[in-house]
């Protein structure tokens, strides 16, 4: 089956989906293709989930320009997309007198980038904000506009709101090749061919591979691994802000931050790797993360850890900046690549910028007056008062059946996740949307129940239910099956 579209976006991460949603404001045919069975499965799913204030990057870089604007746009997006954001603020903590120069430098740089309300606070005030810091902390740069977001809910919300406004999202549609035709590109995907007038390359780690398909070969993506520890919500070490150490020449240091769900997260280290699918945790990496975090808060340890994970940043080493431009070599091909930190914070501003590039390529775009900016998220039983819960279960009895005890996730929420505009198809996709298995038992109790609900909703066998990728089935076969075969064989 061959499809035609005006714009094809490759990549269902936060960048691709934010662009899709931004383009859905205009009268334009847009298709987004994603190689995996869900959006938000690459760099977007495994990072520190920070909405940086924007004081780090140089004012002359895209990072410096887009971070502050992106951060600002999230204030509107959190309402429109029903995505929870906590504006907790960030601290860069100095430990010695020589760090003070660096704080001043960051302050000045941040002010140049237009970061509001930055200030350097003294030890006394710092300890009022963060009583659990190591006693050798002496001062901090305080950035009250920094926030934390749930990157899974955010990316799904971008994608679903785009779909609600006419964008088509095709999953499990890896791009295999791109052929340049006279006035369009023929994009061959795992699910068939698509003729696109304009192609937007938001393929993250694989964006150089994609660009090479059309001869736009002027950048290379280097995967850099970062590892993390995630703690139980019930940890007796309170942290109220995103805490950075003072960056050194060699390292940005290990961040300590609460997540939007009030877990504590520590990480990431930086390790260049060869393999773009290498998400394995390593002893060395995890140890670096723990030691780094202990330099800021020494009480942290393995006690209370519920999860390790790692993510890969898609870096362009030559520039260490985003690359967002229409390819000079190939007409109708826009690269939105090298989006590492602060990519999540910048995503809405990146989308705005890409729309401007599309306008340059396409001429003026016509606004779609039917655009609906509002997306309704799935009810969050875990955050509700008992009264709100009582009302919710009156609407639908499935909200009265708790499937995940650690995160208080109801059957109703899981069904909503599966039936959504971009419905969850895997155990991890359900987890990203509504959190069963994201808590302290890591799915030990609820996973069999989630498997059952997925099988029932999708009309498939339990043995066909996958954790994430196409060969990640959880269960091999019905019990006794091979034994029965064995009996038959021996007869």
């Amino acid at each position, binding site marked *: 089956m061959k499809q035609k579209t005006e714009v094809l976006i490759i990549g269902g991460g936060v960048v691709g989906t934010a662009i899709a949603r931004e383009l859905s404001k205009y009268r334009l045919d847009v298709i987004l293709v994603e190689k995996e069975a869900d959006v938000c499965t690459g760099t977007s799913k495994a990072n520190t989930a920070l909405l940086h204030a924007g004081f780090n990057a140089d004012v002359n870089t895209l990072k410096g320009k887009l971070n502050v604007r992106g951060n600002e746009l999230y204030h509107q997006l959190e309402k429109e997309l029903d995505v929870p954001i906590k504006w907790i603020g960030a601290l860069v903590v100095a430990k010695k007198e020589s760090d003070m120069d660096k704080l001043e430098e960051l302050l000045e740089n941040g002010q140049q980038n237009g970061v509001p309300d930055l200030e350097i606070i003294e030890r006394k005030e710092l300890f009022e904000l963060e009583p659990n810091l190591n006693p050798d902390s002496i001062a901090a740069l305080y950035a009250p506009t920094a926030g934390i977001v749930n990157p899974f809910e955010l990316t799904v919300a971008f994608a679903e709101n785009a779909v609600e406004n006419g964008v088509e999202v095709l999953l499990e549609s890896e791009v295999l090749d791109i052929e340049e035709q006279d006035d369009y590109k023929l994009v061959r995907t795992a699910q068939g061919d698509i003729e696109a007038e304009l192609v937007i390359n938001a393929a993250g780690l694989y964006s150089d591979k994609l660009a090479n398909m059309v001869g736009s070969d002027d950048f290379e993506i280097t995967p850099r691994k970062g590892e993390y520890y995630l703690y139980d919500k019930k940890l007796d070490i309170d942290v109220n802000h995103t805490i950075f150490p003072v960056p050194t020449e060699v390292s940005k240091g290990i961040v300590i931050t609460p997540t939007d769900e009030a877990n504590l997260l520590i990480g990431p280290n930086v390790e260049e790797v060869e393999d773009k*699918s290498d998400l394995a945790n390593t002893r060395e990496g995890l140890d670096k993360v723990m030691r780094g975090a202990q330099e800021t808060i020494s009480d942290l340890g393995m006690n209370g850890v*519920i999860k390790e994970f790692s993510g890969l940043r898609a870096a362009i080493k030559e520039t260490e900046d985003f690359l967002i431009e229409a390819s000079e070599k190939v007409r109708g091909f826009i690269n939105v690549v090298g989006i590492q930190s602060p990519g999540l914070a910048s995503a809405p501003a990146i989308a705005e910028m890409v729309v401007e590039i599309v306008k340059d390529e396409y001429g003026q775009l016509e606004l779609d007056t039917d655009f609906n900016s509002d997306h309704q998220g799935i009810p969050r039983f875990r955050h509700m008062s*008992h009264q709100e819960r009582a009302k919710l279960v009156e609407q639908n009895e499935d909200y009265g059946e708790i499937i995940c005890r650690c995160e*208080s996730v109801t059957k109703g929420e899981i069904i909503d996740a599966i039936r959504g505009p971009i419905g969850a198809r895997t155990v991890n996709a359900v987890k990203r949307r509504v959190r069963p298995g994201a808590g302290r038992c890591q799915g*030990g109790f609820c996973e069999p129940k989630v498997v059952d609900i997925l099988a029932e909703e999708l009309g498939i066998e*339990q043995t066909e239910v996958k954790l994430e990728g196409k*060969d*990640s089935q*959880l269960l091999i076969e019905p*019990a006794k099956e091979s034994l029965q075969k064995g009996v038959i064989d021996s007869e």
Partner: protein
Amino acid sequence: MNKQSYDLVVIGGGPAGLAAAQEAYDQGVKDILIIERDFELGGILQQCIHNGFGLHHFGEELTGPEYAQRFMESVADRGIEIKLNTMVLEVTPEKMVYAINSTEGMLEIDAQAVILAMGCRERTREAIGIPGSRPAGVFSAGTAQRYINMEGYLPGKKAVIVGSGDIGLIMARRMHLEGASVEAVLEIMPFSGGLTRNIIQCLDDFDIPLRLSQTVTKIHGKERVEGVTVSKVDDNLRPIPGTEYFVECDTLLLSVGLIPENELSMEAGVELDSATGGPIVNEGRETSIEGIYACGNVLHVHDLVDYVTEESKLAGKTAAYFLQDKIDKRKERVEVIAGNDVSYVVPQQITDKVADRKRVDLYLRGRRPLENVRIIIKDGEQELFNKKERVIKPAEMITVPLSEKMIDDLNSEQIEIKIVKEGA
């Protein structure tokens, strides 16, 4: 919100909750509610289809479901009220219980007394930080047990098991009997964390190797487990470089410890003991909040369900006596201290005077395997109890009785229980 009230609310319908409710009823409390989150009573026993339950309590060998059935029937015979598929969301210090189910909606239940019997959960791969990838095929042993015994699916065909706790041993045999091959059971400690009978009946009888002082140091495979790297560990349990070897498998089961599930207890303000992971209780299993009791694996992880039953009956009885105003507090409370080579002791306090009581049993666990030791209880300088034990294993619980007279005659406000090598 649906408002209800009961004299006694029992949270959890596993062996602990059932025995506690039964005993409270027999002691004269008739207005009892058991709240169970699953679709049936019996708790984790329902997936423990192997035998070996009930030797102490019933004097016969039962399977898990059979053991549970006896208590389910006795609770049914007494007409004790039960809510299934109902999750407790909050217990307040004032003993207001908030729960939800799909038929009645949100429930606000006013209880005069509460028994916490929520059981435990399994420690995960993530909690112990095994490096490597995160593919399908890594299960906690109990989850795998549920998949096979309750759901009817085999989670893998070639397994390695980390941890030689009882569930790990039971699952090694279970996987083998289901036609999977079990490559090895690895134990990081130099001794097994499981019952001796389980090592013999589950591993030795099926030629499944138990490898001590070894653990998995890396998980391989992107989508599905493809194998694990195993390393020997030193005396400090750290992997020894150079000892690594690769084992091909499609499944990794973890049996690396159980954690009492006390999130509800914590929210209620119940004080916990860091050694047990459960509430600090007195000899009647009353927690730091008057009228809230705890028993079974939510209190401390037991080796045998028979002892869960024993302990839970005690909690049920105390709750009944509390409701009937039959308990007097002692003038001074006695702290029970876990001393040398004792990892924990339950109860942690003795606080009550109970008219018809003959003795108080102390449950304790040894910190390490030892031979030819003496268990000693000291009241200041005075020795209350001194008994020889030939073998002590951390896996097996030790019960030490204290007579009522001994308690009455105590000199100090603190007694210490310790394990010492004979002659030391």
